[in-house]
């Protein structure tokens, strides 16, 4: 009897690893292998033609320096747009998540449904819809004209505003949902306790609710910033050549120009920059939480 019991305990200890195995194998095949291929490609030279590329791994580090020197503007624009979009999504998303978590009452599920609703229509289609809405002949521009709202060059489409707007719009749910989850977990008695201990509503929020919701803010900003920094749809359809982002460049290099080594090097640079940014961000937010 005893032997069986310990055997069972042993099995359950290894169970988490076994359960994780399929996902690990999947990632190993579909993430690590392409990544290694891409890394090799980024250090290769195309000795074939554009139509029949032949890659030779000749440790061509110049691909990387070219990536920086040729597309520095697009890189910094990407991080700027993604940064602004993330901040806007946070400013819009946090209050929305707060209202859904604490004030919505019986409308909670309805509001959550509305946040998720845009996912039922493809990302691309929604962005194209905005292209029509924001177009020079669209009703928004006419209305702004009528109200004398200043617009850059008298238009909305093909401006950096439109790109940032599109990014904010498209990634807002990724901001709202994680923040909602972390706010939802906060026990209301903690807010009562803060108020009981002489905290006016704002300090109760600042000292208790906000720090406890930081994990959600962290997840939400990453889920917004990372895809926004690499996004190519918004810049392509809502922007112009003047506000192209790095995602657009990578996509063009791969699909139009077919300069695979350059595209691969650009991808790696983007990845590295995001990774460093995230680590710094995690470090800052992590220490903030302790104080």
């Amino acid at each position, binding site marked *: 009897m005893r032997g069986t019991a310990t055997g069972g305990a042993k099995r359950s200890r290894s169970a988490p690893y076994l359960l994780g195995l399929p996902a690990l194998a999947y990632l190993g095949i579909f993430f690590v292998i392409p990544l290694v291929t891409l890394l090799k490609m980024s250090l290769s030279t195309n000795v074939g033609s554009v139509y029949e590329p032949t890659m030779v791994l000749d440790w061509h580090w110049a691909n990387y320096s070219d990536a920086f020197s040729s597309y520095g503007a697009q890189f910094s624009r990407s991080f700027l747009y993604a940064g602004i979009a993330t901040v806007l999504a946070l400013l819009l998303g946090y209050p929305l998540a707060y209202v859904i978590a604490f004030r919505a009452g019986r409308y909670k599920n309805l509001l959550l449904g509305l946040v998720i609703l845009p996912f039922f229509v493809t990302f691309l289609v929604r962005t194209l819809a905005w292209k029509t809405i924001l177009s020079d002949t669209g009703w928004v521009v006419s209305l702004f004209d009528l109200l004398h709202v200043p617009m850059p060059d008298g238009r909305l489409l093909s401006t950096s505003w439109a790109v940032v707007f599109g990014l904010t719009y498209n990634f807002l749910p990724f901001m709202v949902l994680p923040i909602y989850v972390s706010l939802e977990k906060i*026990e209301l*008695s*903690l807010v*009562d*306790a*803060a*108020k*009981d*201990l*002489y*905290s*006016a509503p704002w*300090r*109760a929020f600042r*000292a*208790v609710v906000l*720090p*406890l919701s930081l994990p959600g803010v962290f997840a939400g900003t990453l889920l917004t910033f990372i895809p926004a920094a690499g996004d190519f749809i918004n810049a392509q359809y809502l922007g112009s050549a003047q506000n192209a982002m790095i995602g657009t460049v990578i996509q063009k290099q791969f699909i139009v120009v077919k300069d695979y080594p350059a595209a691969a090097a650009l991808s790696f640079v983007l990845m590295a920059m995001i990774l460093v940014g995230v680590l710094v961000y995690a470090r800052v937010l992590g220490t903030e*939480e302790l104080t």
Partner: protein
Amino acid sequence: MGDEGVEPEESATAVAAAGAGSRDTIELDRVTKTFGDQIAVNDVGFGIAEGEFFSLLGPSGCGKTTTLRMIAGFEVPTSGSIRLAGADVSHVPPYKRNVNTVFQHYALFPHMTVRNNVAFGPRSKKVPKADARSRADEVIRVVRMEDFADRKPGQLSGGQQQRVALARALVNYPTALLLDEPLGALDLKLRQAMQLELKRIQREVGITFVYVTHDQEEALTMSDRIAVMSEGRVEQIGSPTEIYDAPATVFVAGFIGQANLWPCTVVGARNGTTSVEALGATLTAPSDEASPEGEATLMVRPERVRVSATDPRPAPGVNATVTDLVFQGPVIRLALAAADGSEIVAHVGSDHDLPFLRPGDEVTASWDTGAGRVLPGRPPAMDADDYFDEELAEDWESAPR
């Protein structure tokens, strides 16, 4: 204890008469709270003296927690007023009231250390960081948690979290400390230790404690006075001995301790005694100005019932048949059936000269006249020992009468 029993009663009547300007720290005046069409607290009024340990006792849903939350400021009374130290605070938010709450599940801030939790109140009041810290450390010592000051609540046991919650409230020197079933989440042994600890701390700091509990034993052990609540109303306010020996209503008699509750008919009152017909006999009980007439309930505590098998029987006495006999350690619990079929429960101590009894034996049950009490209204339709069951008491509480 005997003398103390009388004194708070006087202060309670004084509050009812005097209202504003009395010496009570907390005063509730005709307070009602409704949620939608649900009446949670119904026309409640009482005063709590400075330094008093005051309990709000009742089954869940009786309005005791809502009453406490109104004193704390989390709920605004629908009507009536609440005064703290003489000032009307009915519409003052909790963060502007000088009372502090110990929450049922402690509500410690999980992202802060014990010290920062305790220093939270002073820091909100803009006490300089160093002062707040030393004050926190001082109170942490009072609750004997100095070895855990740098831990976070998640690393503490239930009892330790309880102490921190207490320290976090006491550090503010509140006018009154409000405790919402603070020991509810602890196991029995720890709960009893914490009861004594709470009493010690209350004596040490001399602050008014308002204690919400559904545990009658806890309330009897710790309180100077108890307000027994049922269905949003205060059924009785008094010292533990008053509540136990002289319950004002059938509900109080059944909720506090164990009680025999028999339907009876009042047939007359004379010279301080009331005659009633119950259990197929004419019995007497002491009467006061509040004694009911007509259909009523006769209450006798099981430990006051004497059982004898011998004739001549002592008067007043009731003939009964033994139906059940259970050894319960300190007492033997005897269930008897009276001539009219009512059940009589008697708790007989081991030092009692009890004749050897078995079910079916004819006996006489008796008690001192002073042990009986005539209460208004009919007893609930349920026999005496079901009554001790808390859940059933709650069911009865919510059932229409």
